[in-house]
């Protein structure tokens, strides 16, 4: 299989449409014939990351590289950044507002879920300039 690169813009502020990028990626991974559990893990990570970009960072973009051995998903935003990454990684820690909660998010499980389902995860962030979350999933 040739390496594939996919790029998805993620609109900020639109909590109703949030998840469309993840959905599209999932369909593409299916077409590429990847194993179902790999697709599921990648989709969950991307979905949590997409929701985070929408509710915490006013949108951004996702870049997905499908290689021979692994899928790399980069979620890049120019939002407020994360002041304390260790705290953000704790289960239950959330700064999400009521709008996110009404839709069933904001339980502080997003980043922990991404960690749980990925083989590698890295957060680069700077307060005031943005956040990039990179996850890798072995195929």
């Amino acid at each position: 299989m040739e390496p594939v690169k996919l790029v998805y813009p993620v609109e900020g502020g639109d909590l109703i449409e949030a998840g469309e990028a993840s959905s599209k990626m999932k369909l593409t991974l299916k077409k590429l014939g990847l194993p179902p559990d790999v697709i599921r893990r990648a989709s969950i990570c991307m979905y949590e990351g997409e929701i985070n970009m929408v509710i915490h960072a006013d949108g951004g973009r996702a870049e997905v590289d499908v290689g021979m051995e692994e899928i790399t998903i980069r979620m890049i935003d120019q939002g407020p950044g994360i002041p304390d990454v260790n705290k953000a990684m704790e289960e239950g820690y959330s700064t999400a507002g009521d709008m996110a909660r009404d839709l069933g998010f904001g339980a502080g499980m997003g980043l922990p879920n991404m960690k749980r389902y990925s083989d590698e995860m890295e957060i680069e962030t700077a307060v005031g300039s943005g956040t990039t979350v990179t996850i890798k999933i072995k195929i």
Partner: protein
Amino acid sequence: MKLSEVQEILRADVLYGADKLDREVMSACGSDFMSDVLAYVKNQALLLTGLVNPQVIRTADMMDMKCIAFVRGKKPDDSVLALAQERDIVVMCTPMRMYDACGKLYIKGLRGEV
């Protein structure tokens, strides 16, 4: 458990997928927190929830879930149903509350852990 049995136990109306009730679910998950649902990976699962927004369908889709049962008689709007149809996820609506709906399915053998 077949979805037709789920429907019967929950006394549910089928809002999408009336012709797909011969599908099987192996486990179930009840929650109004989508990240909670996403933390739970099981094959061929049923989701019970009191939320009726599109993120519920997307969450179920990411998890490859087969069916969503909305509790407390909550009905999603047409755009949410259209999304379920697009993702081929059966949608039901039961008058029962979450606790009762889960309990009734559980005693009939549908568990959280397979």
